[in-house]
């Protein structure tokens, strides 16, 4: 079973099921997903203007070339490169994250924590790929936001030469919101 979280004009597809069904996903791996775009300077400058990062490795070609041979991506853009296009002429965009495909009861999600190791620079022109694995799914927990399950995944990022770029462990909370009546029951 799958469903759609509808925010006005944008949809996040989620798979629904029981915790028992979800547990069968522990250890499961995604197919290798190739990132939509190459690591590129315009998107790097866009991201740096968001967080106001003036690091010359992202802005100054001469300095970056001296250190790395090319402008490099901020480490914070690792996940950005793997975001799928919102629309494609050939149909539905790629499934975004393995964690959203795990069947669980929760109708929404929020990200909780990440732990990332960066082993090589991401250079302009690189085309990354990512392979994800479900590491763990917690029993039902209640937080301030609602009741649900913590889904732990590991993403392994490589470049077009197969070199390991980063390992990224992600914890997200897949939950249903608690209504005021439920909260005060």
């Amino acid at each position: 079973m799958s469903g759609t979280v509808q925010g006005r004009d944008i949809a996040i597809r989620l798979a629904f099921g029981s915790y028992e069904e979800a547990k069968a996903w522990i250890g499961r791996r995604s197919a290798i997903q190739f990132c939509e775009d190459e690591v590129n300077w315009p998107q790097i400058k866009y991201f740096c203007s968001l967080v106001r990062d003036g690091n010359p490795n992202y802005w100054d070609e001469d300095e970056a070339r001296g250190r790395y041979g090319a402008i490099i991506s901020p480490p914070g853009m690792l996940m950005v490169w793997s975001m799928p296009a919102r629309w494609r002429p050939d149909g539905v965009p790629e499934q975004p994250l393995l964690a959203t495909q795990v069947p669980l009861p929760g109708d929404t999600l929020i990200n909780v924590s990440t732990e990332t190791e960066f082993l090589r620079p991401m250079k302009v022109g690189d085309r990354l790929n990512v392979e994800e694995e479900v590491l763990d799914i917690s029993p039902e927990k209640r937080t301030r936001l609602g009741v649900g399950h913590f889904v732990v995944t590991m993403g392994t990022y490589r470049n077009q030469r197969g070199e390991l770029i980063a390992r990224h462990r992600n914890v997200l909370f897949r939950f249903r919101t608690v209504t005021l009546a439920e909260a005060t029951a």
Partner: protein
Amino acid sequence: MMPPAARCPQRYWDDVREGELLPEVTLPVTLSLCVLDAAATRDFFPGHHDRDYARGQNARDVYLNTMFFHGFVDRVGGEWAGPDAWLFRRRLDMVSPVCVGDTIRTEARVLRRYEHDGQSLVEVEVRVLTERGLGAAATLTYILPRRTTGD
């Protein structure tokens, strides 16, 4: 115009003290910033741009995403560490949604300075606060250059 070297000072491992404070960074969170966040990170999850959806999630308003905090804490650490530093590891905990109307303020300090596998490392903690308390907390591990080659 200042030369690049003056704009981007480099930290050397030799000079770092445990407990050293990093400069505070503040940033008001506006709806425009959240729109820029969605576009710059290509993240169109509705909680980051749709107020009704965010409130339905028990958040006060649309809130900044994980990738914003990655980039922001890396900036806070990186401005201190300098362009020759290499961010080797980052742990980020999202504690409470940081929403439109909040003002971000950082508290950052050096937790640890050590050597491992022949590398000169420092661990920096960055706490991202708003008027309502802790929004997110990160631990950044950098490999820093040394002033002396040691031979």
